[in-house]
C-alpha cells in the first residue's frame, strides 16, 4: 500500500497574490489515516486536490510509492484519471442523470469490467453500505446521508489504494456524522488504503485520524499523532485551534503585564521555569475550580478568582473566571458548588502549563530556551 510524499509544494493562483500553499513537505505512511485540519482558507483542500491531480502545484514534487505524479522541475504530470485514487467530494458530486447503481458502476464501466462482474461488485458495496434498496433511484430522490453513502460506494467499488476525502461529513447532521465516522473507520480498516481526510472539525480529526496535519495560512503547523497534537501542540496556533473551549493564554512578554502575568512569572521563577518569556497556555479542563484542600500539590500554580459565568453544556460546565483582571475559562465535569459572583480558589498543575516563546513556538517542558530563541 502506498506512501505519499510531498516535497516543497507551493500553489499560487495569481502572480501577485500570496501563495495559498507554501513550501509544504508531507510524508504520509502506508495505511495511514491522515486528517488535514485547519481553518477555512488554510490551503488544506488545495493540498488534497493537488494530490488528486485536480489542481496543479506551481512548485514542488508529489510522489506516490516513489513514482512521480507531479514535478514542476522535471515537467512530469500524471492526470487525475490515471492516478487511480478515490475521491469523495464535499458536495458528493453524484451524477444527477444516472441512477444510484449507474453512479456506482461508472468507474468499473470505464475500466471495461463486464456487466456481470460490475453488477456483482456494485451490489456487494451497496449492500455493505445499506443503500442496495435505492439502486434504481436518482440522487435527487435521496437524503443527504444516503447520497453520502452512494458517494462512498462509488469511490470504494474500484478499490482505490489511496482515498481522498474533502470534508465529506460537513453536510450531515450530528447523529449521521457520528455513524459515518464509525463507518469510515471500518472502511479504512478493511480496505487498508491510505486515507487523507480534510476537515475543519477538530473532533472529527481527533476521532478518525492516526495522524493529524494542522495547517494555517498555507503552511504546515504540525504533523503528529492526535495525542501529541492535543497534549503537546508545537505552537500557539495549534494550541489555540485544537480544543473547545479553546486554550487560555496568558502573555508574559510585556514588562508591565497584568497582575496575573506577574503572578505567573513569579510562579515560573519559583519552579525553575523562569526562562520562559513568551506566553503560558492553560487548557480549561486543567484548571481545578475550588479544589479540595490538600489535594493540590505544593508545586501547582494556585490563586483566587471571581466566578462571572456558569454555562452548563450538558455533561460539562464551562466556568468563566476573572483572575487578577484577566478572563480564564475552566471546564468541570461535576456540578459546580459555587454561585455567580462568588470568590473561589483555583489551581493548575505544573505539568499542565504549556510554555511558548516570544515567537509562539513551544518550549521544552523543562523551560530551556533554545540558543536560537535567545538571539531574537
Amino acid at each position, binding site marked *: 500500500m502506498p506512501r505519499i510524499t510531498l516535497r516543497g509544494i507551493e500553489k499560487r493562483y495569481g502572480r501577485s497574490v*500570496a501563495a495559498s500553499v507554501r513550501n509544504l513537505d508531507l510524508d504520509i505512511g502506508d495505511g495511514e489515516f491522515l486528517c488535514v485540519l485547519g481553518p477555512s482558507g488554510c490551503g488544506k483542500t488545495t493540498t488534497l486536490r493537488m494530490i488528486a491531480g485536480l489542481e*496543479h502545484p506551481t512548485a514542488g514534487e508529489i510522489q506516490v510509492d516513489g513514482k512521480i505524479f507531479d514535478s514542476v522541475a522535471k515537467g512530469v504530470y500524471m492526470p487525475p484519471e490515471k492516478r487511480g485514487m478515490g475521491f469523495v467530494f464535499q458536495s458528493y458530486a453524484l*451524477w444527477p*442523470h444516472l441512477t444510484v447503481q449507474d453512479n456506482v458502476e461508472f468507474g468499473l464501466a470505464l475500466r471495461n469490467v463486464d456487466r456481470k462482474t460490475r453488477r456483482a461488485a456494485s451490489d456487494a458495496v451497496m449492500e455493505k453500505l445499506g443503500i442496495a434498496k435505492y439502486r434504481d433511484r436518482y440522487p435527487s430522490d435521496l437524503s443527504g446521508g444516503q447520497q453520502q453513502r452512494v458517494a462512498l460506494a462509488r469511490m470504494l467499488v474500484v478499490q482505490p489504494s489511496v482515498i481522498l476525502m474533502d470534508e465529506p461529513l460537513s453536510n450531515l447532521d450530528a447523529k449521521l456524522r457520528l455513524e459515518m465516522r464509525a463507518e469510515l473507520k471500518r472502511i479504512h480498516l478493511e480496505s487498508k488504503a491510505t486515507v487523507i481526510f480534510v476537515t475543519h472539525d477538530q473532533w472529527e480529526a481527533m476521532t478518525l485520524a492516526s495522524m493529524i496535519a494542522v495547517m494555517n495560512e498555507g503552511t504546515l503547523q504540525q504533523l503528529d499523532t492526535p495525542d501529541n497534537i492535543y497534549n503537546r501542540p508545537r505552537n500557539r496556533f495549534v494550541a489555540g485551534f485544537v480544543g473547545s473551549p479553546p486554550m487560555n493564554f496568558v502573555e508574559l512578554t510585556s514588562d508591565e503585564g497584568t497582575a496575573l502575568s506577574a503572578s505567573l512569572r513569579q510562579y515560573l521563577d519559583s519552579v525553575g521555569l523562569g526562562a520562559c518569556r513568551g506566553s503560558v497556555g492553560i487548557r480549561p479542563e486543567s484548571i481545578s475550580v475550588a479544589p479540595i484542600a490538600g489535594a493540590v500539590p505544593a508545586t501547582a500554580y494556585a490563586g483566587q478568582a471571581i466566578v462571572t459565568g456558569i454555562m452548563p453544556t450538558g455533561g460539562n460546565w464551562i466556568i468563566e473566571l476573572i483572575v487578577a483582571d484577566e478572563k480564564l475559562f475552566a471546564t468541570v465535569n461535576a456540578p459546580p458548588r459555587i454561585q455567580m459572583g462568588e470568590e473561589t480558589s483555583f489551581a493548575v498543575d505544573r505539568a499542565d502549563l504549556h510554555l511558548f516563546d516570544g515567537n*509562539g513556538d513551544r518550549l521544552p517542558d523543562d523551560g530551556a530556551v533554545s540558543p536560537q530563541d535567545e538571539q531574537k
Partner: protein
Amino acid sequence: MHSATHDKESAQQGRRKRVPIFSKYRLKVALREPTAAIGILAAILFSYLIVAPIVSLLGDAFRVQFADSMRIGQAAGSLTSYNFARVFKSIVAPDILWYPLIHTLSVALGAMAIALVAGGLMAWLISRTDILGRKWFATALIVPYMLPSWTIALAWSSIFLNRTVGGQPGLLESLGFEPPDWLAYGQFPITIVLALHYTPFVILLFGNALRSFDAQLEDSARMLGARPATVARRIIIPLMRPSLLSAVTLIFAKCLGDFGVAYILGAPVKYDVLATSLFRGVTARQGGEAAVLAGVIILIGTISVLIDARLVREARRFITIGSKGSMNRTQRLGSWRLPMTALAAAMFTVSVAIPLLVLFLSTVMRTPGQFTLENFTLAYWIGHDLPTTALRTGILVTPDFWQAAWNSLWIVGIAAVCAGVLGVLVGYVVVRTPLKSIGAYLRYITFLPYLVPGIAFAAACLSIFAVPHGPIPALYGTAAILILALMADQMPFASRAGISAMMQLGKDPEEAAQVAGAGWWKRLVKVVIPIQKGPLAAGILLPFISGLKGLSLVIMLATPGTDLLTTYAIRLVDFGYSQAANAVVLMLSAIAFFGTLFLQKATKTSLASGLGG
C-alpha cells in the same frame, strides 16, 4: 502568533519569486485539458463570424465601392470620405439618412411612450390588483411579443388599406369608408403597431419588478404615516424607475432594427426609417452608403444597449432577494374592478384578438367585410384556379410555400442546433479554461451581435460573405450565408445560456468522473452533455423559434431560391397577394406561439428571462 515574522518573510519571498508563465509542467497540464485549444478555436471561429463582418462593413464605409468608382473617378477599394459625404451632407442625404433618422426616432419614441403607459398600467393590473382573470391576462397580454412583429402590421393594412396601393381592398374600404393616408400608412400606424408589439416588454420587466418588490419597504413608509399616494410617489416609483427605463430602452433598440413593420406600412407612402433605408441601399447596390447607414444603426443600437445595461445594473442594486417581504400583495379595486378588467380585455382585443381575427378572416373571405355565406371560401388556402395573374392556387397547394417552409425548417434548424451546441461549448470553455483571457474574449465576442440590430448585421454579413475570400467562396444566394448569420445572431442568447448552465453545474460532477478515470471526451459525453441536455434543448429551441419568425436579419440575405417563410411572406406582400401573405403569417404565428408555450412548459423558464434574445 507563531512565527508571524517568519511567515511574512516567506510570503514576501514568494512574491518576489516569479512564477514562470511557460514551463514544461504547465505545458503538460495544459495539453491534458483541451479546453484551451477549443477556446482558441472558438475564438477564431467567432472572430470570423462576428467581428470580421462588422469590421469589413465599417471598412466599406471608408472605401470606394465598385458602383461609385466611375462616378467619383477613384479606383474601387481606395480610401475615401465620399460615402460619409453622401450620407451626411449630399443632396440625397435627407432621403438616405436624415428623414429616416427622424422617422425612426419619432416612431421609436412614440412607441416607447405608448408602451410605457399601456404596459405600465397592465403590469400593475396583472401583478398588484384583483382584476378578474389575472392569471389568464398575465399570459394573454404577452402574446403579441411571441408573434412576428409585423403580424399586427399586416392586420392593420388588411383593415385600413386604401386606394393608394393595389391588391385586395381593405376591410374599411369595402365597407364603404375611405381611410385617409395618415391612418393607413406611415408614422401613425407604424408607431401604434410597434407599441402594441413591444408593450409586453414593459408588462414582463415592470411586472417582474413589481412582484419582487419588497412590501416591507411600503409598510415601513405607511407605519411612519405616509398616505398611499405618497408611498407610490416617494417609494415605489423611484425604486421601479430603473426597470421601467430599462424596458423602454430595450424597446428603442428593438424598434431601431425593426424592418417588417416599417416596410409594410411605410413603403407605400415612401415613409422610410433607418432599417428600410438601409434595405434600399443594399438592394440598390449602394455598398458604401449602406455601410455608413449600418454604422449609424450600430452606433445608436450600441449606445442604447449600453444605457440599458447600466440601468439593469442599477435596478439590481434595488433588488432585495429572498426577503419574505416580497409577497404578492394585491390592491382591492372595489368598484373599479370591472372597468379595469374591461380595460385589460380591451388591450387584449386590440393587440391580439382583432389582428389575428382580421388576418384569419382575410384568408377565408373573397370580399372583406361582407358576411354572407357565399363570400366565405377556403380557396386561398387549398383552392385552384384563383382569379389572379400568378399564384393561382391556394397557399397550401403552392410548391413555393412548401419550399419556403422546408427552407425555414432546415436552415433555421441547423443554425439553431449550431448555436445551441456552440453555446454550451462556449459556456464550457468560459467556465473551465485555465486561460482566463480566452474565456473573457469569448464572452464579449459572443455578446457582440446583441449590440448590432439584425438588419445591420445582415449588411455586415453581406459585405464580407458576398465576395470570395481565400478558400471561402462567395456565399450570397446560398443557404450558408443565412445559416452563418442566423447562428451568429443567436450567439448572445446561446452563450449566455451555456455559461449560466455550466456555472450552475459546477466542477464537482466532472471532477468526480475524472478521478473515477474518465478522460476529457468521456467526461463531456457521459457527464456534461447528459446533465446539460435540458439547457441544451432550450438553447436550441429558443433560437429556432426566434429565427423562424425573425425577418430583419434574413430579409437582405434570402434570395428566391433560399426563401424562408418570413421572406416568402414579404415577397407575397410585395406582389399584392395579401391573403396568401396573411395565411403564411398566421401559420408562423401559430408555430411561434405554441413553440414558446411548449418551451415555457418544458423548461419551466419564463419568457422574461429570455427577453434579450
